[in-house]
């Protein structure tokens, strides 16, 4: 499990899926307190830079994990425990 702080970017709209993704991240953050969550709108420059055109969008540690659909807590956990995050954690 990663020990360093991990930046989480949430790209949200005014829809149910965005609300659900926010809720999922909230729950995951309780288990992984090292997550630093920031929210953006689809018309933000950050969304433009990432190429995220559909909400909800989810980026963790500079990896785009979701565009246009909710990423479940299980999948987020799987990513946080993946080799990629582990390796960079040293």
């Amino acid at each position, binding site marked *: 499990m990663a020990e360093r702080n991990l930046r989480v970017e949430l790209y949200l709209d005014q829809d149910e899926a965005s609300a659900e993704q926010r809720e999922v991240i909230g729950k995951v953050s309780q288990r992984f307190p090292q997550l630093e969550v920031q929210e953006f709108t689809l018309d933000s420059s950050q969304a433009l830079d990432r*190429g995220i055109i559909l909400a909800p969008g989810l980026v963790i540690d*500079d990896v*785009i994990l*979701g*565009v*246009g659909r909710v990423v479940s807590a299980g*999948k*987020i956990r799987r*990513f946080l425990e993946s080799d*990629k995050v582990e390796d960079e954690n040293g």
Partner: protein
Amino acid sequence: MSLQGIYFDHAATTPVHPEVVEAMLPFLREGFANPSSIHTAGRQVRKGVNEARDHVAGLLGAKAQEIVFTSGGTESNTMAIYGAAFSQESAGKRGHIVTTAIEHPAVLSACAFLEKRGHRVTYVRPNNKVRVEAQSIAEALEPDTYLITMMLVNNEVGTIQPVAEVAGIARARGILMHCDGVQGVGKIPARVSDLGVDLFTFTGHKFSGPKGCGALYIRDGVELTPISAGGKQEQGRRGGTENVAGIVGFGKACELAGGNLDGNSNHVRQLRERLLSQLGDVSSVRINGDIEHTVPHIANVCLVYVDALLLMLNLSQRKIFISVGSACASGKLEPSYVLRSAGMSDFASFTSVRFSLGPSNTPEEADEVARNVSELATLLRQVRTPEEIGQCDENCPCLWQEGVA
């Protein structure tokens, strides 16, 4: 602004060749006069346009007077299709058009517009290798078919369509034959006499020319109703002051493409083989279409259980630029209509990406792309499950034939 990274999206557009830029610059500076002006300044600019027209015509093996400059592929397609239809309407007729289900939206939209005006259109589907069979076109013809419009190369998958064969059928029936050659010109030999077409669309920015300039070849003797009113430019077929610098750059790009066709083709074909070989070593990959009948610079591949949009966006974060066939529409991702029309499942569509290479790409870049695709594919397979992105469809030709489904 500078593009730093690996650009594998040459089917979308290409970098402008330095010699093209050099050819254009004088016409953005001192050579600014209107080519329709009869004073010396105007005549000098006219000379530049004429020379460019010779180069453009030369690439196709056409006569200079058969070339009409336009703003690009979309306008050329529109000019051809509406022009043919409006000529019918001028004679008090509506009629039937045959096209394919895998055309560029510029053609499909033009056909849809004409359907609303009372014309009938048949959209012929391709086989499961994303090739339209000439016989299918022949079977779609009706007694009042007045136009066949068919692409030379599919922009998404790269498959080469049997245009010459279809043109032969059209000629025998006295039907006008239009071909959208945008993805083929500069990549494979595309001479209008070999293809036997009456109308041929192409544009320069697909092979190192500038954006905003294309052409429609109109075979001598073919009458099209002009779709734009205005001056007498382009033999009265397209009014409006010419995009001189664009035309000159387009001409230069045609000159360069004609001289390097074989070398460029061999180069990108070798790079594509290198890329596909490495991808195949480390990931479950299936090639969409028919690689034996595909232009050398395009590879459309299905990466099994990898969300293509996420792969494309994450590659973009790493400064590697490719594309996907799926499109964002009405707030959600729609599967590729090209793959779908070939019978492929939405699963195949959502896991397929397009690599399109250019002469400036290197073997090292192909290696780097393969390495990053493989790494990201492994990662994305960890966070996406088949239940989320779909399942292989037993009828999907990309997998079914290999028994993977």
